[in-house]
């Protein structure tokens, strides 16, 4: 593919043509905030936090859906850009339950990170009505708090990416817009199979892994990446340890082609369970007793003979 040369923050750079300004800026080491953009999955241009200034352009275009062009002069952090990003964050914060101290997402929340980066705090200049939706705690796997949702739409995109799923979409209009299941039911009454793809991609605390709630702050955990062996998809999960003990298994970003599933996640969790025995049990006089594999398989005499021969 041909290359194009453009200027980013005063620096002349040459990048492959056809890529977006966001990618080009990241290649040059500039960090551009994003909520709704997810590489290889979706770029709806919805959240507008990634806007940049391009010389000669009328508006501030979102860098995630603006392709690089020859001679472009991009500013990723100009005063106008900062003002716009700050305003967008203030608008989000004004309509967000600021319970960060108990929020499961605290520490890995993009809204929190960007609010810190652009020094946005409450009260914003835009205080007013706040969303008052019912929380969905209808099932043991996904906890949904639509009041924390910033409507980036990534959960919708990732759910749609699996054939037969398509459980959630945008519903209602204007300020009342929310992400809803068909007929706006709770998840337990929907076609959701709790694969947690949506949870793995949510940038804020709107979707949480129910199983991990209350078990610790995100910075308390050390994580071990494991590959699920239940089928040949090879999905990745994180085994979360706190103080050396496994507290739960969470779905990792499914990336292209990997479905994630409840079976894989629970199965992996089961395998990593500290209480799990690694010896077989057999029924002796009406009671299950832990025995050796040799005994359970009835091969103790053979093993004995082999061991004897080894000597």
């Amino acid at each position, binding site marked *: 593919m041909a290359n194009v040369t453009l200027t980013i923050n005063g620096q002349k750079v040459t990048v492959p043509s056809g890529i977006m300004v966001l990618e080009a800026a990241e290649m040059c080491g500039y960090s551009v905030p994003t909520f709704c953009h997810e590489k290889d999955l979706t770029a709806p241009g919805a959240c507008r936090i990634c806007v940049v200034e391009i010389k000669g352009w009328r*508006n*501030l275009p*979102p860098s995630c859906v603006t392709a690089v062009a020859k001679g472009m002069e991009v500013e990723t952090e100009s005063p106008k850009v900062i003002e716009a990003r700050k*305003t967008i964050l203030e608008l989000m914060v*004004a309509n967000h339950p600021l319970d960060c101290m108990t929020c499961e997402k605290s520490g890995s929340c993009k809204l929190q990170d960007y609010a810190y980066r652009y020094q946005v705090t409450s009260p914003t200049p835009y205080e007013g009505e706040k969303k008052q939706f019912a929380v969905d705690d209808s099932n043991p796997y996904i906890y949904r708090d639509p009041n924390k949702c910033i409507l980036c739409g990534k959960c919708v995109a990732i759910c749609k990416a699996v054939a037969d799923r398509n459980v959630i979409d945008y519903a209602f209009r*204007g300020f009342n817009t929310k992400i809803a299941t068909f007929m706006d039911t709770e998840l337990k009454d929907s076609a959701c199979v709790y694969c947690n793809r949506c949870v793995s991609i949510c940038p804020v605390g709107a979707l949480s892994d129910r199983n991990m709630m209350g078990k610790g702050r995100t910075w308390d955990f050390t994580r071990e990446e494991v590959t699920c062996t239940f089928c040949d998809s090879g999905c990745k999960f994180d085994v979360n340890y706190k103080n050396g003990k496994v507290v739960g298994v969470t779905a990792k970003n499914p990336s292209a082609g990997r479905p994630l599933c409840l079976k894989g996640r629970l199965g992996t969790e089961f395998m990593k369970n500290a209480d799990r025995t690694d010896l077989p049990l057999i029924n002796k006089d009406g009671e299950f007793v832990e025995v050796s594999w040799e005994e359970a398989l009835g091969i103790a005499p053979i093993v004995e003979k082999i061991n004897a021969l080894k000597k």
Partner: protein
Amino acid sequence: MQLYRGHVLVCGGTGCVSSGSKKIQEVMANELTKQNLDKEIKLVETGCHGFCEMGPIVIVYPEGTFYCQVQVDDIAEIVSEHLLKGRIVQRLLFKAPVTEEQVPSYKDIAFYKKQHRVVLRNCGHIDPEHIQEYIAREGYEGLAKVLTTMTPQQVVDEMKKSGLRGRGGGGFPTGLKWEFASKSPGPKKYIICNADEGDPGAFMDRSVLEGDPHSLLEGMLIGAYAIGADEGYIYVRAEYPLAIKRLKVAIAQAEELGLLGDNIMGTEFSCQLHIKEGAGAFVCGEETALMASIEGSRGMPNPRPPFPAVKGLWEKPSNINNVETYANVPVIFLNGADQFATLGTEKSKGTKVFALTGKLRNTGLAEVPMGIALREIIFEIGGGIMDDKKFKAVQIGGPSGGCIPEQHLDTPVDYDSLIALGAMMGSGGLVVMDETSCMVDVARFFLNFTQKESCGKCTPCREGTKRMLEILQKICDGKGVPEDITTLETLGAVIKNTALCGLGQTAPNPVLATLRYFRHEYEAHINDKKCPAGVCSALLEYKIVADNCKGCGACARVCPAGAITGEKKEPHEIDTSKCIKCGSCIEKCKFNAIVKG
């Protein structure tokens, strides 16, 4: 062919139908038969005349007599007096405002005199449900010329030469748009018509759909030929049942005559047209949302590029124009681009249809050449302000437009001059306001509309317009603080700069434009806690002027809050702490003794 000595045209547009024109038609038909005139006089149901306020409208030809607000009881008199004896029924003629002079002829009425009808050329003159009437008015001749004598490239070039710009609001040059779509490679392309007219008070597209549907079909077919499309959609709002019905009739008739479908007019060119009914979302007038809606998805805009000309409906190159744009096309090819370009200004060619509403003496649809002054539209065609009140502003461009004050009324109207004034052409809605309109309240009204119709996708529009609306509400409630003006301006600017689609990018316009020209009204609300126009009830106080009060007690009896007290035949008093500002007392008082302010 049966020849008639006269024609009676009864308007069958939605406006006149709702004021009873269907019944008029029925009674007229019976009356003509009764008086043995049915072989001499032909009764025709037409589309909209644009002067809906005066409906039901009946026009008698060959004289061109314009009867307005005709009632069922008037029919017998029209038939026996006018049609039989040739005497015009004076009392049913249009009376010019102010002078009260009766105007017998259609073309002498000030409302029509200044107009130049290109798009609406057939509306109100032909029966829209008979394709022959359209053909008799040179219909489908432009298409015949295109299909038999021109290459698609020549069609595109002719369009570019005409200088026609999109009438949906954006004002993008139509020829250029067609060129993009025609140069886009691919065997499958779509031609789409945006008939999702949603601006409050605008009904020019409905008028064309109901009154002259074939001009749209012909325009779309010429466009399809130019870009290489063999299929098309007309996205029409479901709230226009009559328009949909007439479109269906028009499509069926055109197909029957070989003017639509396979091998049109015996040529190699084939094109199918479908109707897709909208589901009531204003944002579906935005082209990417419109295409998403046709595809069966939620009507939400998508970022451009890719533009529809490259990746449109079902990812195929597509061209979208609105009804009024397409309705111009047949005329361009019939008379040539040069002739079309003689009308209008240097950068805006042709005419524009405006929907005049608000505090005007004459309201309705008016088609005028580009470049005409707003003053002419408002004071000559519109007849000036109702009840001799003072003009304050004209809101132009629909809910995303801006308000233009008196000092700019002489600006020639075109796309660019309106943008420069902080308004926009939009679809051509024109709401005239007099001194009794509060500009803060007006801004709040329009913002409320756009906020409710926001699709909810992008943050600035979804959250930002809501906050602007809350601030305006606060100001109207008398709780505004001086910083609110700055907040409105900075937030408005960010929304304009960062919103995804045209709806969001223009949503702050009504606020920003009123702040530009009527800042003092905002300041009066905030600093003096007064609404100068006397609209915002929270800022009003009702008082009784003792000198005028006769002590009749009518106000006290009507007051639902028991706030008015006083002795009989003595001046009464209003207890402002009890008063709920409903205004019932003012309506009741015969002596103008109660004032608000």
